[in-house]
């Protein structure tokens, strides 16, 4: 499988506090790559850096092109999509409108100023794929929590993102929804690189192709699920520190 995104020596500084401290990361197409680590390990900040929200040093290269210094929307147009911890969809717009917007970043001003003739095919197809085929005209604001997360993922799909950075995509979901989401992730990862920031260890074990553990801004371990969970340093981080109740809860859930 080809490497979609290569991060080298990423370093993010917040007023003297180093949130990400020299991280190397490779995301390959065909893999669901989990990023785990305790709170404050720098997972979300790393995603912020890659997507252009946080300033950093180092380098992020996608398909041979350096992304550092580019604006948020330019990075997005190069096929890097992300979701957020709390689902951010456009609540007052319908599901179809949400997806149509996500599909149209390259539209000409002229076509923007006209009314939508019909839904683009990929929007219709994606709606089915994320299980919202019946909800086209439903305002996104009244979707169930899990549906919002799916919609958000769907918005990345129609936008032709081939590197997906998902921040806690199953937060607040029930068991069945988690399963569906996990299968969806593997399904879409067939020809894309998917990175998932997650606390839920069961979910990770069930669906991770590869795991990278971050701790205090640096990569602690990286490899398959078994390799990582066998690593003594990882166990220490997760079991030896008391300030990480969610991870423990999640691990025992």
């Amino acid at each position, binding site marked *: 499988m080809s490497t979609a995104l290569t991060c080298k020596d990423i370093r993010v500084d917040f007023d003297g506090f180093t949130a990400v401290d020299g991280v190397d990361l490779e995301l390959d197409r065909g893999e669901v790559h989990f990023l785990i680590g305790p709170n404050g390990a720098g997972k979300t900040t790393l995603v912020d850096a890659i997507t252009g929200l946080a300033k950093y040093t180092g380098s992020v290269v996608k398909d041979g092109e350096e992304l550092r210094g580019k604006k948020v929307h330019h990075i997005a147009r190069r096929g890097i999509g992300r979701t957020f911890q709390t689902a951010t969809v456009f609540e007052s717009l319908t599901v179809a409108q949400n997806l149509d917007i996500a599909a149209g970043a390259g539209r000409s001003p002229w076509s923007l100023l*006209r*009314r*939508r*003739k*019909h839904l683009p095919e990929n929007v219709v197809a994606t709606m089915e794929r994320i299980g919202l085929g019946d909800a*086209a005209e439903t305002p996104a604001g009244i979707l169930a929590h899990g549906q919002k997360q799916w919609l958000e993922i769907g918005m990345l799909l129609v936008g032709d993102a081939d590197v997906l950075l998902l921040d806690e995509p199953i937060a607040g979901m029930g068991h069945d929804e988690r399963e569906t989401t996990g299968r969806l992730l593997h399904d879409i990862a067939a020809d894309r690189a998917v990175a998932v920031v997650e606390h839920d260890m069961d979910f990770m074990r069930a669906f991770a192709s590869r795991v990278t553990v971050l701790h205090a801004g640096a990569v602690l371990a990286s490899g398959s699920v078994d390799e990582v969970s066998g690593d003594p340093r990882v166990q220490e981080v997760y079991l030896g520190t008391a300030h990480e109740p969610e991870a423990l809860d999640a691990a025992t859930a």
Partner: protein
Amino acid sequence: MPLRPKLEARDIARTLAATAAITGLIATAACGSRAGEETVAAESCVDTSGDTVKVGALNSLSGTMSISETTVRDAIYLAVAEINAAGGVQGKEIEIVAEDGASEPTVFAEKAEKLIREDCVAAVFGGWTSASRKAMLPVFEDNDSLLYYPVQYEGLEASPNIFYTGATTNQQIIPALDYLAETGVESLYLVGSDYVFPRTANAIINAYAADHGIEVLGEDYAQLGSVEFSTIVNQVSASGADAVFNTLNGDSNVAFFREYANVGLTPEEMPVMSVSIAEEEVGGIGIENIEGQLAAWNYYQTVESPENAAFVEAFKTEYGDERVTSDPMEAAYNSVYLWAATVEKAGSFAVADIQANADGVSFASPEGTVVINGDNHHVAKTARIGEIRSDGLLYTVWESDGPIEPDPFLEGYDWAAELTVTE
């Protein structure tokens, strides 16, 4: 859900086209007279057949100018009540239609039009700022009606449809300069709010100073309503001028005089001559900050005459003992009497008759006799320099030899030739 979007876009284009067409059609069909063609002014709807006659009172009762203009409103009501008590005008009782100018020129224009066209008043009394008068002027000219404007102003205007009963520049600014020159002032510093009256006043002062060998050491304008005067006062203080000529307006005076007193400037070493501070304003500034400073007006509450004694007493009886009377109030009071006297002389309420008979109409007013000048519709008035004393009132320290003829375009002053242009 696929709708019919192409049609939608076209729909809206069609709506646009239709609207444009309708507008164009109606507009061209309705075209009236073009430039240069005489238009007939709207027929006056003033009805004087009954035993009352309506007049308008148009003052700001809300907004920033309400502070000053409500006092003028009171004076207008007092005059109307007195005239009615004495039998009215032409035997008819005067009925006031009151409107609020809301301190906005556009509202003044709107309400003036309403008073003339909807309420059919015979004349309107009111306005304060020049902006409000300039806004109303075309309304009164186009509808051929009458406005009586009671406030001193910057001159350079004469409309057949407006009577100006406050002072023009040669009845206030120039006497003030004469007085300063007489007392040996050789250098001046000019401080004003940034609007038309102070700028025009200072243009006149500069011309006068050039002609009379007075040096103008500085000229500063503060934004209207500004309360930050340390820079200006620093500059005034550093200039070492003999006197300051102050055309500030409203709340700015409070901040200016406080700062002035606080840096230790006194009326003895550098007196301030103000043209916008009357009895009403002294209280807010604080007597300790302004005592001994000078003002230029035509009327003070302290003017000694039987007419003024009666006016002050009537006013206090009506509105309360703590109230004071001031120049614009007196001018507004006079304006009602002058209108009534003109109507009596003309024997008619018609605008044309009033215009024809206005010249020479006089009224024994609180400030002394005032006489309408039929050419420029201003009023001959006595100029007075007042000093502010510890009781908060102004006392005359100098007055002109009788009423000064109004000269709004300063045609009688050679040094002002460069300033003025007559239409």
